[in-house]
């Protein structure tokens, strides 16, 4: 009897250990995480507008009043500049690293003049840029990204049907391009 109880205790300790190992290791190999799905969209450095229904990558923007676009990027060689402008009641941007940890987020109220203009760069690239800030970047928000790979999500709100075209145009005009200083 004692042996059986001992066996069960050992089993439970093993279960607890295994539980911890799975929980801690799972984020690294699910293959279902948001970064994997975003990169499955296609080439990096361009925005992909998401539909209401999940597509083959499983990404969707489920909110009927929100339109969203994602851009996978890699700043290993050059910084990436995100830009968009247009009249929408609300837009927001969030930048995630490849582990889907939030690096930076903002909305239209926290932007300069209501336009989206963000430069994502590595600490080294930013130091070089700040020495002689190009004129084009004077209004830009400079975001330091510790890791090279990540993705950006831009959302635009259309609380009324009549504003859906504006929200779509805002996202369709959004750019996510490598920035090389002249």
């Amino acid at each position, binding site marked *: 009897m004692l*042996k*059986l109880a001992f*066996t*069960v205790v*050992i*089993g*439970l*300790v*093993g*279960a*607890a*250990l*295994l*539980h911890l190992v*799975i*929980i*801690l290791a*799972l*984020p690294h190999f*699910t293959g*279902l*995480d*948001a970064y*994997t*799905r975003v990169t499955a969209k296609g080439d990096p450095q361009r925005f992909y507008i*998401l539909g*209401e229904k*999940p597509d083959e990558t*499983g*990404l*969707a*923007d*489920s*909110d*009927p*009043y*929100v339109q*969203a676009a*994602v851009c996978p990027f890699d700043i290993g060689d050059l910084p990436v500049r995100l830009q968009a402008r247009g009249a929408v*009641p*609300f837009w*927001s*941007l*969030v930048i*995630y690293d490849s*582990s*889907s*940890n*939030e690096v*930076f*987020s*903002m*909305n239209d*109220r*926290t932007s300069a003049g209501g336009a989206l203009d963000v430069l994502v760069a590595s600490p080294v690239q930013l130091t070089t840029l700040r020495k002689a800030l190009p004129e084009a970047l004077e209004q830009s928000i400079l975001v330091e990204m510790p890791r090279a790979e990540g993705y950006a*999500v831009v*959302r635009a*709100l259309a*609380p*009324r049907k009549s504003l859906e075209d504006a929200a779509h145009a805002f996202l369709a005009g959004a750019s996510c391009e490598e920035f090389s200083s002249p």
Partner: protein
Amino acid sequence: MKIAANLFRVPLYVALALLIAFGGGIMATLYALNASSGFGAIRLGAWEAFPRAQTADADPYAKSHRARAGQLLLGTAEGLRFTATQDDSGQPLSTACRYEITGQTPPARLWTLYVTDRNGNAIEPRPGLPVGLNSWVVARHPDSSFTIAIGRGAEPGNWLPLPDGEQPVALALTLFDTPTAGSSGLIDLSMPGLRRVGCGRA
């Protein structure tokens, strides 16, 4: 004779220990990941939100959950999504019942409300019916609070249609650009009440 019995018993105990370890460990993990999006939830009445789920400070359960769900979460400056899977009395939300939302949202520039399944995917109503409600279109009382009727049958005033058939549903109330997202719990927040009016034809 005793040696022979032990010879069979020891591998049996080892097998049992391994079975409990692997079976229990995997079941407990699956249960934990399906049951909740991690710790750090703020619960206001029937509503639940995870303001830190998308950050590096999220707990390991939240990180595992989001790596499996693969959703594009809202950033801190974007907003905060509250979901309700049960009403104020703790009964799970079902399409067979009628509900009423009354009150105010915490301060936010905009909010949207729509019906989802239990995985967070929006459920589209029959064509022609409203897909949801938001702070621009909702009709308000003179004190700017609002009442929203939720159910399968159309109702006057603010009405959010539930899909046909009997299935468990959830409600998603997203606050955009809200101080709630960065809340340290010091602000007194109040979410609208979610009351069950009745079920079936009653």
